């Protein structure tokens, strides 16, 4: 089906007349990824322009490979996405039959039949693709408890925590998983806290109010951002936000990384 080209975007009045270099990054009113895919894979090649791979009949797996090559490993979020992407393709973990096996998606479905991505934890969502397109891995995990230990031993605390939560959703009295979950949370909390800075520091929003809406973030990050008033310390915001400490620290960390917030 031919991809319909999006209409010319009209800038909001506040941004009209601004120099291109001054203008904040604005989300286009269409899905740029879909647009890019349509241009890259569906549309016929434009004559006279170099075309190396558009002509090729690429399978979904090849496209994944291509995307993986394009990932720039700049921070942990991307590293995490890269790790998930690399795991998705691993055939060695795939079980010949799904009977009796437990996938991450299935495990979540057992306790919550309809998984609403907006209700799951920040870290869960991050694992499932972060703020961007949510992707629930379909990789089959035979023994989540064993994999939890494996990931913990490898220092993959986000992954170990995710698996510990899956194990606990099946068996809330599993002491092993509870201990692992607690340790992972503690390690991750310390890691984010160390990156954000001393919790007695006061975060300040450095993006002008009028431009906040053009940023890329989810509503939970929007809520945390609304709590930053330039006088409350990070510790206070953690007390106020009503989220788990880990989720809140993760969001604060991302806001700092994205230079939306600086800690003074």
């Amino acid at each position: 089906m031919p991809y319909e080209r999006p209409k010319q975007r009209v800038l909001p009045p506040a941004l009209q007349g601004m120099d291109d270099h001054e203008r904040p990054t604005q989300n286009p009113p269409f899905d740029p990824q879909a647009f890019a895919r349509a241009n890259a894979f569906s549309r016929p090649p434009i004559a006279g322009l170099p075309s190396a791979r558009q002509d090729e009949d690429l399978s979904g797996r090849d496209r994944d490979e291509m995307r993986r090559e394009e990932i720039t490993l700049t921070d942990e979020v991307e590293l995490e996405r890269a790790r998930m992407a690399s795991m998705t393709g691993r055939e060695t973990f795939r079980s010949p039959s799904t009977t009796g096996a437990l996938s991450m998606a299935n495990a979540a479905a057992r306790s919550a039949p309809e998984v609403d991505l907006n209700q799951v934890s920040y870290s869960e969502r991050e694992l499932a693709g972060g703020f961007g397109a949510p992707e629930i891995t379909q990789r089959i995990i035979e023994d989540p408890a064993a994999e939890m230990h494996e990931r913990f031993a490898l220092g993959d605390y986000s992954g170990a925590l995710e698996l510990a939560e899956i194990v606990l959703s099946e068996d809330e009295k599993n002491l092993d998983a509870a201990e692992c979950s607690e340790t992972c949370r503690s390690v991750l909390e310390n890691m984010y806290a160390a990156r954000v800075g001393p919790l007695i520091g006061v975060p300040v929003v450095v993006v002008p109010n009028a431009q906040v809406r053009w940023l890329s973030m989810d509503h939970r990050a929007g809520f945390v951002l609304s709590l930053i008033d330039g006088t409350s310390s990070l510790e206070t915001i953690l007390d106020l936000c009503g989220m788990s400490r880990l989720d809140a620290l993760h969001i604060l960390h991302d806001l700092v990384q994205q230079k939306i917030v600086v800690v003074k």
Partner: protein
Amino acid sequence: MDKVIGIDLGTTNSCVAIVENGVPTVIPNRGGYKTTPSMVAVTEAGKRLVGHIAKRQAITNAENTVYAAKRLIGRKWDSPQVKNAIATSSYRIVRGPHADVRIVLRDKEYSVSEVSGMVLQEMKIIAEDYLGESVSKAVITVPAYFNDNQRQATKDAGEIAGLDVIRIINEPTAAALSYGFGKNVERTIAVYDFGGGTFDISILEIGSSGVFKVIATAGDTFLGGEDVDARVIDWLVKGFKDEHNIDLRQDRMALQRLKDAAEKAKCELSSVRETEVNLPFIISSGRNEALHLQRSLDRATLDDLSSDLIERTVDICRQTLSDARLRKEDIAEVLLVGGMTRMPKIQLAVAEFFEREPCKGVHPDESVALGAAIQGSALVDDKQEMVLLDVTPHALGIMTQGGYFEELIPQNTTVPTQRAKIFTTGRDNQTAVKIVVMQGENERAQHNELLGEFILKGLKRASKGSVEIEVTFEINADGIVSVHAKDLETEKEQSIEVTASSGLTREEISHMMEGARDYMVERRSTEEFEAARQEAERVSAEIERLFPQVEQIVASSDFGRDAIEKARGIVAKTRTAIARRDAAAVKAELDGLARTHRMFKGVVAKTH
């Protein structure tokens, strides 16, 4: 002379004031706000939050945030107001061991006086921070309709907070004092008090002798500015639902932001005609994107949204005047009290009803605290004439046959006082009478507050009406009520002493006071550490900034290298002490840091 603070312990906000050099002044809190939300919360980590910080998480941590504790203070478990509060509160309210009310926060039970004590302690801290010295004496205001138990519970709250409550005064009286009434003025005034959580209308008769008589008071303890906020929230939620088909109420974080924005918009519309509610990333669309809420609200819309609420206050005013058999012309002045009275529509409604422009000279949020401070100052300053006299807030009397209430000491009687009345038996051959002591103004005893009861036995057998019993009520200077009943023929007598009770025992109060002291010590030590840490971090950063320059300058000298090593050692020790949260160690390093900083600055200055 001791400093006395005046505290307006409000349902939704509290305010503290003091008289300095003869000028009553409201004391701002650390955030610069002159009022502090009367809210207390306990976080998941067990940390206590009081004031603005508690309010900012009130919806996301609703089960563990107490608001409007004043509606419960001094009330009995089975009172209708408590039942109403149970039905409308997000926090858990349970029965206490003395048929009183307790509040559960994170599985721990607190008495209402204890929770109010936390708010009062915060007000005390605000005053102490401002004055730079310890404060122990306070005058606290309460609504005119509060009975003795509620007043005693407020006093207990003050005691738990470490305050010596030298006087409890009525809120409308305090407001009148702040407006300058009370000196050589005899008139009847109305105090229209529309606060965040309650509405009260009081009619006061000001006498030249310093007695403020509350001749009528009425109100609605569940009508306030928060209801107006709720209307604005409804309007925003509906608009958003119409646009996106998403109910913002389903998300606590969105609701918390809506609540804050609605209150802000309401306040702004008192001074501007239109305001913008802008809440970016308020909720997820469910399609992997966050939606924004952006709407304009104008004053006319706000007036429409709140018109029935305002009308309710006017109806209460009308009824109160009618009950007091007063005409609008009898009211010499109308005072506006409470944040909601800044709303132009309310000022207009009051002016229209009373057919006169209300007084707006004093800030409506601050007038009650200022009045309390004026009274507090007068109580400890011998040179000042006494502004107010202590009066009984409600009438005292006994229950008589048929369930009627017979008044012995009328409302607004100055204390100490003593009154006696003779009663007779109601049945033939009656050998005992039950004296039921009550407080209130209703002629039906069941509608008044029971204070205590006792039985006078051994009466002579006689026909009804022939045995005379003298009942004497006495209130001493401490407000303790004694009731004596005496058979005038046999001289047999029986008595009871009634002391107002908040529902707490002395032991409980002492235990809570200890808890409050511990909290204070911990808080002060944290603050001390914070102050030392900030100074140490500031100087350390300065020293680190100068390191490269100093190193370059003194590179060739052994002495200089030694000095740099020492400086590095001091900065490292400071950082370790900060990491250990060791206040004493951080403070110990401050001198060394300051010396090093001076030396480094000197070295750099000499070479430039």
